């Protein structure tokens, strides 16, 4: 169990304390030394604030402070009670409607929605006319009015929650429906309901004020904030402050409640709230902390040196990628392999200048040779220049083709945009080029596919469209970030063939390919050189054939051995898990999982050493790896 006053709960303290203060004050109204809220002193009507009457007196000479506190009793009780009743009823209706669907849904959610068809004021008037004005009637009216909103939220949340794996798991365990609903579904749909609660309380206060203002709610002379606003309006020219106090009380309480419920939702989320993101225009230049740019010509197409990326967390910055150095020659395919959290995708995104805002490069350089032969450090390039390079000299294909295509635009148009963005001539010419590209990437019936919306294509076809967009401006470097992971094996084979074929094609010859993947077998099939990453660093690099035949880092060796392809009875599993970047083991980061680790491995962090022509390994005993 977590301590109640861990830092996460701190953010509840201020709004919570203020809210408690308001509630306590209001509850303690009879005990406080307040003037009688209904006692009239007509001779002192509209008197200014005085020691006896801190907020002054109203049009009948009644004490304003006292009326605000007593009025708060009514307003708060009515709104909280109504929000609570509506919450319980609405949540129940939504929960059972969303979980059981069918006839139950019709009886619960749809019936509740009928209420939404009536204008709220009309409904309120109807009930008040039938039952007469008063606080109880108000609670009833507000409950009826707010129930459908809860029912809808609970219904929508339940609908999406009921198909979640952990809900299905409960059913599979043999749990009864009520157990599933109240133990599993309800706690997990609670956060939006909490937000709904804060909104409802606020809205109920507003409505209570409104109805009282119209004379349909609380009956005078009992004070309520709405009544006070109503009364003050008629004398607002003589005593504008009279209007201010109840409005302030109303607005302040509502705001406070909203803040409190928002924070409560964040606190109840076990994963914690995300770190805030600074909008781009407020961000400092991303290269601020970097050393002076080096634009010396680098060998090859791209040369990454000492790339270090830092992630901003509430606990301080964490270096998630450290001292990554490797290069890609023209026409070469380099595979960047690693598990999740190894930093392989971040490295690729750094080259594209597409790092998420919470991650900044803090050291190193990425020297890229452009088409015209000039060399520039991509980490230092202003965003405007980077934008010109992206989709032109540099392009990328992402993992999930379904989420990288805009579902509301035709595929051809999206590819044409990539061409036009870099001055590809007229729209008509771009169109022809798209059809040609679609043919090039093996889409059947390219002219028709260009007119198709993404949902009309299969996953493999969408990935072909993405590749067409990526090679549209004959890039110098194509980055493919797990381009086949979301695809089936038979389609994966097709896409790998396509990439290999594109590279050998005349148009895109000399194109470098950086292939990011976790699949070693795919690396074997497509790459010339492989760069293996573990826990944010490169642990081994070399030509694919040699690395696979004679791995020089125990991690590479273990990965190769753990593949289920081997005929061994028991798979050679790597014990333990990938360390979190926040808690890296000292010394060699792989040492705790390594079968060959010695005492020395746990203390000194190894450097990358050369273990053959064009090969490096970050291990102190590289030659002993079998």
């Amino acid at each position: 169990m977590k301590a109640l006053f861990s830092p996460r709960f701190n953010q509840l303290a201020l709004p919570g304390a203020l809210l408690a203060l308001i509630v306590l004050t209001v509850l303690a109204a009879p005990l406080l030394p307040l003037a009688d809220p209904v006692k009239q002193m007509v001779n002192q009507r509209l008197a200014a604030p005085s020691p006896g009457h801190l907020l002054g007196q109203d049009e009948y000479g009644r004490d304003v402070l006292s009326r605000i506190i007593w009025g708060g009793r009514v307003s708060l009780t009515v709104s909280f009670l109504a929000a609570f009743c509506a919450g319980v009823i609405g949540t129940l209706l939504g929960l059972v409607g969303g979980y059981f669907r069918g006839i139950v849904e019709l009886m619960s959610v749809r019936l509740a929605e009928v209420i939404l068809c009536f204008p709220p004021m009309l409904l309120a008037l109807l009930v008040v006319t039938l039952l007469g004005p008063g606080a109880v009637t108000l609670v009833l009216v507000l409950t009826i009015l707010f129930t459908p909103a809860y029912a809808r939220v609970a219904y929508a949340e339940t609908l999406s929650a009921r198909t979640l794996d952990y809900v299905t798991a409960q059913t599979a365990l043999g749990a009864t429906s009520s157990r599933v609903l109240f133990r599993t579904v309800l706690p997990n749909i609670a956060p939006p309901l909490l937000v709904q609660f804060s909104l409802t309380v606020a809205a109920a206060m507003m409505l209570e004020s409104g109805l009282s203002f119209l004379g349909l709610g609380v009956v005078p002379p009992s004070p309520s904030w709405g009544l006070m606003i109503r009364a003050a309006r008629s004398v607002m020219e003589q005593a504008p402050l009279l209007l201010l106090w109840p409005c302030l009380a109303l607005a302040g309480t509502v705001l406070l409640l909203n803040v409190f419920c928002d924070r409560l939702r964040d606190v109840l989320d076990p994963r914690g709230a995300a770190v805030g993101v600074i909008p781009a225009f407020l961000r400092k230049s991303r290269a601020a902390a970097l050393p002076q740019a080096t634009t010396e010509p680098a060998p090859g197409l791209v040369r990454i040196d000492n790339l270090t990326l830092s992630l901003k967390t509430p606990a301080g910055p964490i270096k998630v990628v450290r001292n990554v150095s490797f290069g890609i020659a023209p026409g070469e395919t380099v595979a960047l392999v690693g598990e999740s959290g190894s930093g392989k995708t971040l490295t690729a995104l750094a080259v594209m200048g597409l790092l998420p805002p919470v991650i900044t490069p803090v050291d190193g350089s990425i020297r890229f040779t452009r088409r015209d032969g000039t060399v520039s450090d991509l980490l230092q390039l202003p965003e405007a220049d980077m934008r010109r390079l992206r989709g032109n000299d540099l392009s990328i294909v992402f993992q999930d083709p379904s989420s990288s295509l805009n579902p509301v635009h035709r595929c051809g148009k999206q590819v044409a945009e990539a061409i036009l963005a870099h001055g590809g001539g007229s729209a008509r010419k771009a169109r022809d080029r798209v059809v040609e590209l679609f043919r090039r990437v093996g889409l059947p019936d390219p002219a028709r596919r260009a007119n198709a919306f993404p949902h009309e294509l299969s996953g493999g076809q969408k990935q072909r469209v993405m590749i067409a967009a990526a090679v549209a401006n004959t890039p110098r470097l194509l980055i493919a970030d797990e381009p086949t992971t979301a695809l089936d094996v038979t389609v994966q084979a097709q896409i790998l063939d396509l990439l290999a074929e594109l590279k050998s094609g005349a148009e895109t010859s000399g194109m470098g390919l950086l292939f990011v993947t976790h699949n070693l077998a795919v690396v074997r099939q497509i790459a010339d050189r492989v760069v293996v990453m573990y826990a944010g660093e490169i642990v081994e690099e070399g030509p694919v054939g040699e690395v696979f035949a004679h791995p020089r880092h125990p991690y590479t060796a273990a990965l190769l051995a753990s593949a289920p392809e081997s005929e061994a009875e028991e798979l050679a599993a790597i014990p333990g898990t990938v360390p979190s970047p926040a808690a890296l083991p000292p010394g060699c980061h792989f040492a705790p999982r390594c079968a060959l680790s010695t005492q020395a491995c746990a203390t000194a962090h190894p450097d990358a050493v050369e273990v053959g022509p064009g090969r490096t390994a970050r291990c102190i005993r590289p030659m002993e790896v079998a």
Partner: protein
Amino acid sequence: MNVHVSPPLAFPDRRPLLRAEGLKRGFKGRGGLLGRSHEVLALRGVDFALARGEAVGVVGESGCGKSTLARVLLHLTPATAGRVTFDGKDLGALPKRELRALRRRMQLVFQDPFASLDPRRPIGDQIADGILIHRLATREGAKEKVAALLAQVGLDPAHAGRLPHEFSGGQRQRIAIARALSTDPDVLVADEPVSALDVSVQAQVVNLLKDLRSRLGLGLIFISHDLHVVRHLCDRVVVMYLGRVVEEAPAAELFATPHHPYTQALLAATPSMHAVDDRREPLKGEMPSPANPPSGCAFRTRCPRALPACAEELPELLHAGPGRRLACPPVLAEIPEAPHA
């Protein structure tokens, strides 16, 4: 009783614990804004059997219906046609209470360990759920059992009070397996249990499943698109394509001599780590939409051996040697043991 004689099962000598006949499962599909709703069949007639303690792999590409099969076999999604019997009891006909009781004996492990655990409850509570639901132990006893289960799947029993997000993917999958084992099931259905895991952790979970199987005599239905893992773990393999079984064989034989052209293509497309294979021409095109399956054999649109006759008739799954069944008439005609016409 129906006169239809079901084809011989792969293990006719062992009484199947779980048996499915003619399973169909449809989902409502919709065509366009005003299109009439029509039924999309995810399962188009599947027969399946699992003997006690047997491990059967179900392979196929996404959309072939393998995950739907997992849910229909456990009656989490009712079949629209056909029936599933567990230990002789028809799951569809059982009263709710008895079905819930029977669930103790068949458990499910999901693909995504990040989605299969309730993020708001300590993992110990979640593992204890099954024990308490079926009243297999008192609350105190459940605590001990949870500790034992955690130890069994290789986790520290002291971590029972932690929330799921404090664990890595591989550890979460172990927790999910512990939860599934909490009711002492006879059958474990694992729906792609390692495909969401890191490469270095996959082997751990595969070894764990293998170990549990030999120690507990657990029946296993292992659903996967990774043929290598299936080969490693399963006795028998069922290959599915577009909602139907196209081939079924003992694992070793299927990999040594795949009969169905789809099985062959699947094996050829699976990249190998050992060598750059001069791969056979990759299969053209993609799996057709289940909303509009081709007539006759669903694979004929991509099949290198398709004949005009393949478009005519839905191929039946027929005996093709000991323990093997195959749904491809042209290939069946070449197999000497097959009782072809």
